[in-house]
């Protein structure tokens, strides 16, 4: 018997939601939000190392998305599209903070970077907490590539397009980020 794979089924479901959304069906919009909100908040939170800023990013992304009703064209995966919007917004916030001289994610941010903060303790188990702390040590560009590929399931080619860099640069960043994470995590285990 013919059966759709999970990813094909998910893609069809997205296409149907987008089709309805473009025709003014706001329940479809709610459906899209409910379907991806947790993934997007997670992505933004790890990129920005700050949960409240992460929620602002996701809110901004959905405000813009609402305005695109009627003219939104889905050319790839919806999750990838929304993840790209979140990553762009997060990057702009990071740049703006850098310009204004405020603390940025690659700099010391004790409240966010503290792996024992109550917020993080409540959210992640020990292993994920270690990972989260290690991710924060990565340069922003590498962390973004790693998360968009491994967490949001985006292809290297799509990430390269989003970041306006070559696919080789993206693959290099991914490989380098993995190597560093691996050594950091192994270091934690050996301590």
């Amino acid at each position, binding site marked *: 018997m013919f059966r759709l794979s999970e990813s094909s089924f998910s893609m069809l479901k997205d296409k149907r939601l987008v089709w309805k959304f473009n025709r003014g*069906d706001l329940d479809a919009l709610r459906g899209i939000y409910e379907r991806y909100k947790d993934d997007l908040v997670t992505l933004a939170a790890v990129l920005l190392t700050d949960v409240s800023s*992460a929620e602002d990013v996701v809110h901004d992304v959905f405000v813009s998305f*609402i305005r695109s009703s009627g003219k939104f064209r889905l050319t790839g995966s919806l999750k990838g599209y929304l993840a790209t919007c979140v990553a762009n917004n997060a990057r702009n916030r990071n740049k703006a903070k850098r310009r204004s001289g405020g603390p940025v994610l690659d700099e010391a941010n004790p409240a966010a970077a503290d792996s024992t903060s109550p917020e993080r303790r409540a959210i992640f188990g020990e292993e994920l907490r270690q990972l989260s702390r290690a991710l924060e040590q990565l340069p922003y560009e*590498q962390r973004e590539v790693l998360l968009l590929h491994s967490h949001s399931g985006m292809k290297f080619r799509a990430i390269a397009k989003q970041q306006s860099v070559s696919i*080789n640069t993206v693959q290099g960043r991914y490989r380098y980020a993995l190597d560093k994470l691996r050594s950091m995590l*192994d270091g934690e285990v050996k301590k």
Partner: protein
Amino acid sequence: MRPADKINELIKNLKLKASADLDKRVHDDISRALVEPQKTNPAYSRPIVWRTITKTRTVKFAAAAVVVLAVVGGMTFWPGRGSDGKKWWLAPSSAWGQEILAALDAVKGVTCREQTVLVYSDGSEHTSMTWDIFYVSHDSYRRDIYDGDVLREIQWYVPDGDGTLHHSIRFDLGSYYTHSGQGSFGNYDPVERMRSKVRLLDKADKLLGIEVVDGRECVGFEISASKYGNNPEQWIDRIWFDVETKLPVRIEQRGRSFTGQSETTRTTVEDQFDYNPDLPADTFVPRTPEGFVFGHPDDIRAGRETPQK
């Protein structure tokens, strides 16, 4: 050592929950969109394309032409054959396309310049300060990246056993980075990119005619990038061939999106092609200037941006 799969699995398992506050904010915005329908387009009673076609005579005619072309699908775009034998581009592309591919196969090395031009919504253009010079031989690749007149970076991709050595030096950071990997530099190779475009010429949308480019008489073709890959219609590629040598003189990739600015588009221009140039013997030999430190540019930058405590 943890395998990459294990780390990927851990990253997939990272999961935060959106707060009730965020839920409320987004759902409130959605509800507002419901009571302010002018901000979102209402449901269409019919597909918008159909309405456009039936309303305007020009589009109706164009649509009819598209239908006719679709019916006789497989017909090449080019209508005639060059009567004097000189206008080879008027003959079926199946013939001269092979000639161009053969000419490209004979190329032992090539250098060219690549620039990025930003095109704003009012039509004005700005050429990026950053531009590249590519050097390509049959198995090696080098890219010199300039900021204005200043050489910022050199990247080499050269054979290394069964794989490829990637070596880069950053003059602005005083650093170098090197690693070996599988595969080749195929994504960058301008000759390979030319080959792929030539193979698509029988699907070209427009003949741009004759124009003098870089002092040479050239014939240009235009093709939508939607003809290859999952690309938008508005991505347009233009390629200009030397009428005499049949080798590309200028390649433009127009209408590409520009990150963060939806009204601005990006055009990449490759020109100043020099085929089989006489290059110094060490062009493809990676080097590291004395005193340069090892490190990925991302790390070097991040390290310098972190305030010293």
